[in-house]
């Protein structure tokens, strides 16, 4: 028989304003086996915790129920409190009467009734609780960073700096990400490559960092401290360890008509290529879709000119297995596809470009050598129209995104300013809904564009862009002057919304992490745990979590590294004692549980059982490895006979809770 104590928290007015806490405590006090009840303003405070400790001692409590906030908030706190009083921490149950009750109800009578029901369910569960002991598991002192953009680079450098091994998995042939494609960075206007490429070199030279370029994460198993990751190294048809990056092959390759994705298709590259001069690793890669040797078996020029003998047309994708203690997601972003925005004539005219394409058109290493020329006739554009919020801040029904892409206002101001500086004879118009410039020195930057550089900022949206006689007719409305405008432009630049990389969603599934409806990874807590995912051991860095500019990305990347270092510095992690257990007498040995176990915690043994009439039968039964089991409970629902059960969340406990609710 349990001796149960019930503690109802006011949470200031968070709970007490909507729930009659006194009534809840008194009513629950009448439940069977409840020998003590109390309500207090802040149960989690020192004073509140002392009340719990005293009650456990005084009333010899064997189990306690705390009616308070979500267990995600303070379950760990109250378990420690119980432990201090000498009670097994797993004899504590939380009834969530805040997030699931007071916050969502307005009527006090209803909320109070519900709080009582939730408390009753928790009491019903405590009746069946048993003391549990947590095991320990070691921590693999190695981190994996998925994505080699500036976020991944910074996180990896910081983790390596603390002395831990780090692997970066980058799907492109080189690290560097979007920042390597950008020309100048706001608000200081320093050259992107000049600040990024030294960091790329640092990564390459750091002994603690290993880069898996042109690779993808194929599978993830395991749990915090012990992730087992399969990395697919895609065949680049060049032996990475032999290639010196001399570039002889890329010059001699006869297949010159390959769209250059680094320049966003604005020019062509060869079928064997190094994305850009500062690539890390500086190793050539063959594009199998265009290489004549791979497609028809006729050519082999690169192999002939390669002095290092690095070309290998027979190379195959390779799978690498590696263990990690922590995983950092830094998968970044992409501008959205503009196929649904034909009013801006993006698909009709080469002179309608995205902002990222504009970066390439102004970059010294870009297709025009840094001279701003419009793609159609390679002439200097004299009138440029920038359109902001293309696909951002749309209503839910449209094909765009509801969120603000955050970086567009600033980079558009940068583009406009730089254009005016370099080509003062150019008229620059910016159409905007709002100009959003929160950030250090951001608003000053935008003011300079307007006041010093004479950029025409017009509040209003562009309705239509139509190519006419080599020009782009831009129809727009000026909302402040309340008039329609027609501008004859040479170049139109669209500030396309940004969205998470398409590789993010399958990755989230592999990592069992949460995403929001826009496919951005969800942080464990928006304020208090912004760089951790809700899944232990998975951390978030950069735009995979939400739109960010470079300074913000780098800050988050370093914050993320600090969290990883904190984890890797531990030698052992306390495990979760709520693990699965098989009732061997009922187990059929059918393997259903083993098939659904994401952690590989279940194996089978042939075991002898005493049967009726002094016979012995050998039966195949499931065996759970408690050090590997994470207590997800998938096996308990897959088991056809109900032989699999979860400690701390047994079927009978859950049914008791349901019964208590339905009473």
């Amino acid at each position: 028989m349990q001796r149960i104590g019930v503690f109802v928290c006011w949470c200031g007015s968070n709970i007490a304003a909507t729930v009659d806490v006194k009534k809840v405590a008194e009513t629950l006090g009448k439940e069977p086996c409840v020998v003590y009840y109390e309500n207090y303003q802040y149960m989690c405070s020192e004073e509140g915790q002392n009340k719990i400790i005293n009650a456990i001692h005084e009333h010899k409590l064997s189990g306690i129920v705390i009616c308070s906030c979500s267990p995600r908030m303070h379950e760990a706190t109250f378990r420690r409190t119980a432990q201090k009083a000498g009670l097994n921490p797993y004899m504590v149950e939380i009834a969530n009467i805040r997030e699931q009750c007071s916050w969502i109800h307005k009527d006090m009578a209803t909320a109070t009734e519900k709080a009582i029901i939730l408390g009753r369910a928790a009491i019903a569960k405590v009746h069946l609780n048993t003391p549990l002991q947590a095991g320990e598991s070691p921590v693999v002192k190695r981190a994996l960073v998925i994505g080699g953009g500036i976020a991944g680079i910074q996180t990896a450098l910081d983790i390596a700096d603390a002395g831990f091994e780090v692997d970066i998995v980058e799907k492109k042939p080189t690290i560097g990400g979007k920042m390597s494609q950008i020309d100048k960075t706001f608000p200081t206007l320093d050259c992107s490559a000049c600040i990024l490429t030294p960091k790329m070199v640092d990564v390459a030279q750091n002994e603690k960092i290993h880069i898996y370029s042109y690779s993808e994460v194929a599978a993830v198993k395991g749990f915090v401290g012990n992730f087992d990751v399969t990395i697919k190294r895609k065949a680049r048809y060049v032996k990475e360890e032999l290639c010196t990056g001399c570039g002889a092959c890329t010059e001699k390759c006869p297949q010159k008509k390959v769209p250059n994705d680094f320049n966003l298709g604005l020019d062509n590259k060869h079928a064997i290529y190094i994305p850009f001069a500062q690539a890390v690793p500086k190793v050539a890669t063959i594009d199998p879709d265009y290489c004549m040797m791979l497609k028809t078996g006729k050519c082999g020029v690169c192999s002939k000119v390669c002095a290092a003998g690095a070309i290998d047309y027979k190379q195959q994708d390779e799978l690498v297995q590696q263990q990690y203690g922590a995983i950092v997601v830094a998968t970044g972003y992409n501008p959205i596809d503009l196929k649904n925005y034909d009013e801006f004539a993006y698909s009709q005219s080469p002179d309608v470009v995205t902002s990222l394409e504009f970066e390439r058109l102004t970059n010294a290493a870009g297709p025009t050598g840094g001279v701003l020329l419009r793609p159609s006739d390679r002439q200097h554009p004299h009138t440029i129209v920038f359109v902001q919020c293309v696909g951002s801040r749309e209503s839910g029904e449209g094909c765009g995104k509801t969120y603000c892409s955050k970086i567009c206002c600033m980079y558009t101001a940068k583009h406009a300013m730089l254009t005016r500086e370099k080509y003062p004879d150019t008229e620059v118009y910016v159409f905007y809904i709002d100009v959003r410039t929160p950030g250090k020195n951001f608003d000053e930057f935008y003011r300079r564009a307007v006041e010093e550089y004479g950029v025409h900022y017009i509040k209003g949206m562009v309705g239509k862009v139509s190519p006419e006689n080599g020009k782009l007719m831009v129809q727009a409305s000026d909302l402040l002057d309340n008039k329609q405008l027609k501008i004859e432009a040479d170049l139109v630049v669209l500030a396309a919304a940004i969205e998470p990389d398409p590789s993010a969603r399958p990755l989230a599934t592999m990592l069992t992490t949460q995403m929001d409806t826009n496919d951005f990874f969800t942080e464990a807590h928006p304020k208090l745990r912004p760089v951790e995912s809700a899944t232990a051991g998975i951390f978030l860095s950069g735009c995979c979590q939400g739109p960010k500019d470079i300074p913000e990305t780098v800050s988050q990347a370093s914050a993320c590294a600090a969290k990883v270092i904190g984890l890797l510095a531990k030698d052992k992690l306390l495990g979760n004692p709520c693990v699965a257990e098989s009732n061997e007498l009922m187990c059929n040995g059918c393997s259903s549980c083993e098939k659904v176990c994401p952690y590989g915690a279940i194996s089978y043994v042939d075991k002898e059982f005493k049967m009726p009439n002094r016979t012995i039968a050998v039966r195949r039964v499931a065996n759970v490895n408690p050090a590997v089991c994470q207590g997800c409970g998938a096996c308990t629902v897959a088991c056809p006979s109900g032989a699999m059960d979860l400690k701390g969340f047994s079927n009978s406990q859950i049914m008791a809770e349901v019964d208590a609710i339905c009473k």
Partner: protein
Amino acid sequence: MQEVIKQKAIELLSSGKADRVLGWKEGEFFYDITPAVFTDVKEIEEKFVYNAFCGPNFSKYLVAESRKDGKIAVFLKPCDTYSFQQLLKEHRILRDKVYAVGIPCDGMVDIEKIRQKKIKGITGVTEAGEVLQIDTIYGKKEVAKKDVLAERCENCKSKKHVVYDELIGEEGDVLDSHRFDLVEKIEAMSEEERFAFWQNELSRCIRCNACRNVCPACTCEKCVFDNPASGIDQKAAADSFEEKMFHIIRAFHVAGRCTDCGECSRVCPQNIPLHLLNRKFIKDINEFYGEYQAGADMETRAPLTDYQTDDCEPSVILTKGDQ
């Protein structure tokens, strides 16, 4: 065909290839064919039968039989081999203790369907090709066999034996059956109509457990309905709602493992079309996760206990339920 199979049974037993033979013999009535384990040749000669009433699927018997000493030979019709293989996949049958002989099947006859043709006082049925000659106390009658086939045989899913040690006759093919037509009809009903349909069917249940006892997917060491700790063992028929729960829980328990052998409906003394519940699951699995036939092979992972990143989202399944 009966003679060929009988001779094979005798040969297996006398050659020592098998210590026991699992076959059919007549039960109370000639159409009431019962599974039997034969251990001597004389018994086989006298009692072994194989005719259009040999519906029973032997797969489930092998769970216990394969754990006994010695080897057992078994005769499996094409659809039985699916159940057999599914149980092998679940490690329920010890394969090396079984000698499986695949035998041909042209469909089993449902005695109720003969009776529905107003043929009464039936004393015997003989097959003559496509026609059944029926002896009754009122004289001889004839019906076309295709008109009195059991529903599961009318909609036969496969004439292919998916696993065997030896095959009598020729290898058949997987067929293009219309087995989901009736499920579609029920799906098309309004919620009220559908509820009324199942209420009418399931309220006749007398909880005899025959469906569970015959089901090759129900081989648990301890069935939840027999286990007081499961909390659902008393779901017999405390009220009219719970009486439905037995069949719904059972359908969920065998979902993804049911091969659609149709034994549940064959044995139901109340003629409840229980197999339709299972077929609904099979149809849904096919639609959500791609065609899957339980027991068709040893390797394919069952969609319900497997996850692929391109699996349809739970929301799709939810919306389908709303339709």
